[in-house]
């Protein structure tokens, strides 16, 4: 180990436990599920047919389950209703159960046999929800060629939902069947007739309410490409990208935003809120005036951060800290390749129906120069996570400022501190955030990061600074 990672590891605050899990292969899938009804969740690694279970998501306590050859769909759920989860999988036409932590048989226990659509699936097992809740005991939801069948663990048919011709599921993109000629040919010689053929068969059954929804809800915001952000400023408010101001009022109160210029230096924001009309009980939506804020949105995720925990989304804007060329800046840039940026938090003020023009908190960071050039409208930071790490209901913030580093800032009563609450250095560049979950069930979010040959889980521990939760207006008896 070289000196620098050692020093940085020592400097890292103890607020997080850094747990390291080996990555058995590039195709391995990490996921979380709960086996015992109480206690922390488990971390699972599905690598081909080998499923490794890290108990309580700790790297030092694990066991393996070898799935049967030909296994396709895999679920971790409580099938027999005893509160403990087991592995339920499909292998060819067989439905197989593996008890956890110790299967009764190394090959699992055959539940019953049924030809499903999974029989001809890919060679690698994949995660799929097979077990669905029922009033009495859970059931297995199995797609056959003609229907979705609900069966008990013994194989008894509980319900049958035929594939309705009226419920053809639209593919995510494109058409159900398409064939288009490539002109000129791309793989064939000149003069040949070349065609691309794509076919997606995705009929869906009509299901009762308790089995809905089939998929996640639709997107509740308009993201807006960088170009649309620039063009929006000259267009009516209806055309502006937006994000919801409150989760419970997804489609009503919105913050509309646009770039003030093509250089993405300032952000224009309008608030669209319901206004009472003359008719009794009727409402109409009006967009307020465009207000200018310095910088661009750091994140355009569905859930905007709520730094002060008042249930309203807040603005987090970024801008380069120094546009001027100083000897200091040039020296720093030449030696470290980094350039400073500022993050500013503008809290939403419900009573004024606007974001506060004064920054509630300002954070100064440095990011690699090359990251600035990737996308003009995007913050030069990677692996952004907005979550509550210390359970105080305020949104905290984590990101990579270099390829091999991850840092976390807690948002406290005074806002962000310039020094990160925790900082981690890794041997190789981080590739992505695998997931963010409250593994211990204590309201504190863990971050799982995918490295070159490892997965790192940053788990908040007892040393995590805790701030008193904000007092919400309703707790004071104030009307919003």
């Amino acid at each position, binding site marked *: 180990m070289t000196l620098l990672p050692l020093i940085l590891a020592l400097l890292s605050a103890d607020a997080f436990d850094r747990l390291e899990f080996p990555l058995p292969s590039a195709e391995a899938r990490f996921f979380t599920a709960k086996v015992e009804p109480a206690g922390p969740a488990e971390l699972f690694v599905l690598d081909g047919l080998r499923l490794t279970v890290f108990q309580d998501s700790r790297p030092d306590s694990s066991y393996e389950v070898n799935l049967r050859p030909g296994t396709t769909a895999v679920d971790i759920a409580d099938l027999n209703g005893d509160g403990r989860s087991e592995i339920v999988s499909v292998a060819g036409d067989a439905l197989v159960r593996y008890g956890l932590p110790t299967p009764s048989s190394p090959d699992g226990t055959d539940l019953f046999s049924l030809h499903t659509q999974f029989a*001809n699936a890919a060679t690698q097992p994949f995660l799929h929800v097979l077990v669905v809740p029922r009033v009495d005991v859970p059931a297995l939801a199995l797609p056959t060629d003609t229907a979705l069948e609900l069966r008990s663990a013994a194989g008894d048919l509980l319900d049958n939902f035929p594939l309705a011709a009226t419920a053809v599921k639209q593919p995510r993109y494109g058409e159900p069947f398409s064939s288009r000629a490539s002109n000129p040919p791309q793989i064939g010689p000149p003069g040949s007739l070349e065609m691309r053929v794509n076919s997606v068969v995705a009929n869906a059954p009509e299901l009762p309410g308790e089995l809905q929804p089939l998929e996640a809800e639709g997107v509740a915001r308009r993201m807006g490409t960088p170009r649309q952000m620039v063009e929006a400023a000259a267009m009516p408010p209806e055309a502006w990208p937006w994000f919801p101001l409150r989760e419970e009022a997804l489609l009503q109160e919105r913050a509309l935003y646009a770039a003030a210029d093509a250089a993405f230096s300032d952000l224009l924001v309008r608030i669209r809120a319901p206004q009472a009309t003359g008719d009794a009980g009727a409402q109409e939506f009006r967009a307020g005036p465009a207000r200018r804020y310095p910088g661009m949105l750091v994140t355009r995720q569905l859930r905007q951060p709520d730094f002060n925990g008042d249930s309203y989304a807040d603005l987090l804007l970024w801008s380069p800290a120094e546009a001027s060329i100083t000897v200091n800046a040039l020296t720093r840039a*030449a030696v470290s390749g980094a350039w400073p940026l500022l993050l500013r938090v503008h809290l939403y003020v419900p009573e004024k129906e606007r974001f506060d023009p004064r920054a509630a908190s300002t954070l100064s960071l440095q990011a690699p120069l090359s990251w600035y050039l990737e996308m003009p409208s995007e913050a030069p930071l990677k692996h952004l996570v907005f979550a509550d790490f210390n359970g105080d209901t305020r949104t905290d913030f984590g990101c990579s400022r270099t390829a091999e580093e991850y840092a976390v800032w807690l948002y406290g009563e005074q806002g962000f501190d310039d020094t990160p609450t925790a900082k981690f250095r890794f041997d190789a560049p981080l590739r992505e955030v695998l997931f963010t979950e409250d593994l211990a069930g204590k309201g504190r979010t863990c971050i799982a990061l995918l490295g070159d040959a490892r997965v790192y889980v940053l788990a908040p521990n007892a040393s995590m600074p805790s701030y008193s939760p904000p007092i919400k207006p309703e707790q004071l008896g104030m009307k919003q």
Partner: protein
Amino acid sequence: MMCLPLLCLAALRFTSQEIPAVYVGVVDPLTAEAATNFVQADLDRDGADDLVLAGMVLFQEAGGFPPERRVPLPQPDAPADIDVWRGALYLRSQNSLAIYRWTQGGWETVVGQPLSWPAQPPDLSEEKRRLQRYLHDVDGNGDPELIAVDPAGIHVFSRNQESEVYAERAVWRILPPLDLVQEEQQQLWPAPRRRLLFPAREMSARFFLQANRISVLSQDLETASSRGYVRTDYSVAAGQAWELDPAASSTQATPSMPAFLRPCRLNNDDVIDYAGGVWQESKASAYPLPVYETWATLDGGATFKVVREPSFQRLRPHCSFLDVDGDGDKDLVSESATLFQGGPREMIAQLLTRSVLDHVLRVYAQESGGFSKAPAVEGQVRINLDAAPYLNGPMFQRYQLGELINFTGDFNGDGWKDVVVREEPERVRLFLSAPGRLGGALETTWSVPGPADIRVYDINHDGRGDLLVQPKQAQQAQTPGSLVYFSREEAS
């Protein structure tokens, strides 16, 4: 002194003309082809290719497309796909086939027959017409067969030599079976986020017909980072049975390759090539430097040529594979900027203070079944960004999108691709190439409107590239037409 008369002889002259509704898309970096909304075919049999659009034909005359020679296409009763075969216009709809020829100033119906077509054309525009190739002469008798695809397979329609009526002859059930779609990883916990997902099945393949042989290419061994391809060739059985000869089929599978490689054709051999590009991060610098890697294999994945060039992250290369020297084989072109060649301190100074950018092109010629180890040809063009790259101005954004440079056109017909560069928002320059030099000799300069797109395409199919100054949304009817500068050789 000998050069001067040669230069004079080779001098170019440009004539401009506004052409409505013609659209040329951006160049595909892998194939060097641009999507168009027209096909080029000689409908009036005067030896010059005309432009066939979905709604009209622009007849070519004296190297241009005069307004008085713009003729509407025959109006079909139902949505129809249009293809052209040896000067004849084929319009086939769900239930009929019509063949027209242009004779003596009008459309003559050669064939009009009912024909049940297996594949429903998608919802077409008001014009009810779509350009779509479906004609191929499988049996080599000079009459094209009609090819249609539906979930059941590939349908072949041929003309009966006696009755001269087209009818379905065979269905080739050779497309790969449906596979379960690998959806994104489903979340199994916590319980509120579990979703019942009904799985979809998918098939994706390409095929091409070459004389009486059909080849199907499909993906195999697919993972997130790698994939393989399987190619199966079939021959149509002799004797007009129209069935595929099982004895004459063969299958070739590639080894697993990086997922960013796409099948393509880089030369004229019988092997499908694979090529693509990927971003990496270099560390031999004071800071992480983006490096663009261009990969190609000419032997079906056995060996690879990899060229690395430092470049701006997210920069879309204009064109990575192109027949630069006119020998029929596509060469590998790498793109970079001199900004990355001067060391870290100088690069930072340029990022912060220099509003001019020198774009570097290097050509690795394809020769003897591979690409040259060192660049065979190099070129460099200068672009005025109006502002330092650090400020991410509109010109830099256009540069990142690969819109400011185009080297797919051969303007003087010498076989070498010439370089068109949008040097400033309203100024475009043409640099002629020559053996051993890409670009370099300034030929001409055009003034163009700032918002317009610049495209290069041989519109009149005379072997010389033409310049299109194309308004945004050029496909829409109410948009003004593209201004086309046709290149011609100076007569003197």
